[in-house]
């Protein structure tokens, strides 16, 4: 069993990192720029981001590879850099990781819809795309792969879990993205928290969960429902609220303190690993650590 899964199995509540995109935008990433390119062009920023999160108290960080699939990189004309940029993403985070801490290789959605879901993407091709990215992350030394922000649990996500497992044998964390609609919390493709948790567990995920899309109150509802559907460990990366515009600037309303105050409920709901998504930074992680570990970390 992997080091990460052993650690989770001790029952200790673990703390993940905050956002990658938000950090990079504050450190020179142009609007619409390719974040994964920074792994090659600005390695000190990527290493520094991981170091900042570890210093804030994160037990694990995610790699800068969310859009590192061939589908996504090809849109920037970098489809030939998949292996290299994913490997670099993993190596840079690894270099910053203290002994005993973990690196999760991030894989985000392909932006494609499978043929079986009335879209145009071929399942065999998508499988290969996930496997290729996972091999790059594994070559750079990640402890696990985190397939995240997925909207299609029964199609794309299942395919990703199988591809990562078969290509690398690494543990897989699988987190789904919800939206609140008139009838409750659903993914874009119609998965509920219960149905997704069951689907991902069946597909062989080692950790399930949810990230992005909703604020902390709704996330507590998602985790509660997932906990009823599975005994697997649950990870959540939570947005700093829903962004709004103030004087022309984009502001995420949930401060570190405001989020930290609600973390007891996130834990009660059944989460085993807690971190931040869009709008969160090292200061959020610091507040999470302080709240959950009484400032001892």
């Amino acid at each position, binding site marked *: 069993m992997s080091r990460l899964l052993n650690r989770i199995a001790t029952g200790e509540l673990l703390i993940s990192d905050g956002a990658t*995109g938000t950090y990079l935008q504050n450190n020179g990433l142009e609007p619409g720029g390719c974040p994964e390119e920074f792994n090659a062009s600005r390695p000190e920023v990527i290493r520094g981001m991981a170091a900042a999160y570890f210093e804030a108290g994160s037990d694990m960080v995610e790699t800068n590879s969310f859009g590192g699939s061939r589908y996504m990189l090809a849109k920037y004309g970098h489809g030939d850099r998949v292996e290299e940029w994913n490997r670099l993403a993993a190596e840079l985070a690894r270099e910053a990781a203290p002994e005993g801490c973990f690196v999760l290789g991030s894989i985000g959605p392909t932006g494609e819809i499978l043929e079986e879901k009335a879209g145009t993407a071929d399942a065999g091709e998508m499988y290969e795309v996930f496997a290729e990215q996972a091999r790059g992350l594994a070559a750079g030394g990640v402890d696990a792969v985190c397939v995240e922000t997925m909207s299609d649990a029964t199609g794309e996500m299942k395919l990703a879990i199988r591809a990562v497992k078969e290509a690398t044998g690494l543990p897989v964390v699988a987190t789904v993205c919800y939206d609140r*609609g008139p009838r409750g919390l659903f993914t874009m*493709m119609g998965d509920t928290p219960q149905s997704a948790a069951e689907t991902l567990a069946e597909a062989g995920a080692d950790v399930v969960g949810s990230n992005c899309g909703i604020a902390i109150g709704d996330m507590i509802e998602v985790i509660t429902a997932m906990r009823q559907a599975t005994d697997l460990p649950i990870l959540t990366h939570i947005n700093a609220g829903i962004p709004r515009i103030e004087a022309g600037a984009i502001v995420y309303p949930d401060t570190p303190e405001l989020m930290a105050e609600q973390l007891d409920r996130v834990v009660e709901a059944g989460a085993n690993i807690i971190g931040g998504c869009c709008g969160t930074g090292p200061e959020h992680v610091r507040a999470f650590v302080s709240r959950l570990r009484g400032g001892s970390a």
Partner: protein
Amino acid sequence: MADLADIPNEFIRGELDEFVERENERRELIGLYAASAPHLLEIAAAIIDGRNHDADRLTLEALEGGTGALEIMDDGLIAGMALVGIKFRENFIFVPEVLACARAMKAGMVHIEPILAASGVEPLARVIMGTVKGDLHDIGKNLCIMLMRGAGFEVIDLGVDTSADEFIAAVEEHEASVVGMSALLTTTMPNMGHTIEAFIDADLRDDVKIMVGGAPVTPAFADEMGADAYGDNAVECVEVAKRLAGLAG
């Protein structure tokens, strides 16, 4: 006034009764379906059920049987998509089902479009749609386009990463009356405002109505950057486009 029992198609009666909950929409759709011929309701049912082969065959049969192309489009294809949009908005169906319905709509429209074009029938309005500069996401925009086409609009799709110049050139080339901009990223959302400024600089702002949407976009942001309207979802996008084109209250 017509009621549910006047709709001569059992499947559509059931769908309408189960999924259309708002009273004004129920009344409107009951009126629409009760006034439609049974063979056109078969087409609407094929759209609602996402059966593209049936939509293709039934549309051809209706044309061969002498029904006018415009009537088939309005009372069959568009009538079907109207219910699809409501089911989607209310979380009864999701993206895969809408894609299947839109494919069925398209299977019928390929027979209708050339006939309407040849007879000089004008679309409801021409709409330019694109994801703004720097943003490569298009699932939401594409859903909006499908539902707008499903409602009878002619839509010119500029794709992703669309510059202000491309929006402006498309408006001039196609003489469009409405422009729709989409963004998924908070970082590219300001490019909507920049595009609107470019329309002002080009002295074209008064010639078009501009609507915006996308996950991070809010009504307040739409206001602040000077858009004419905001749509929260693909169904609202259609309603907004109709309003901006002067077609509805």
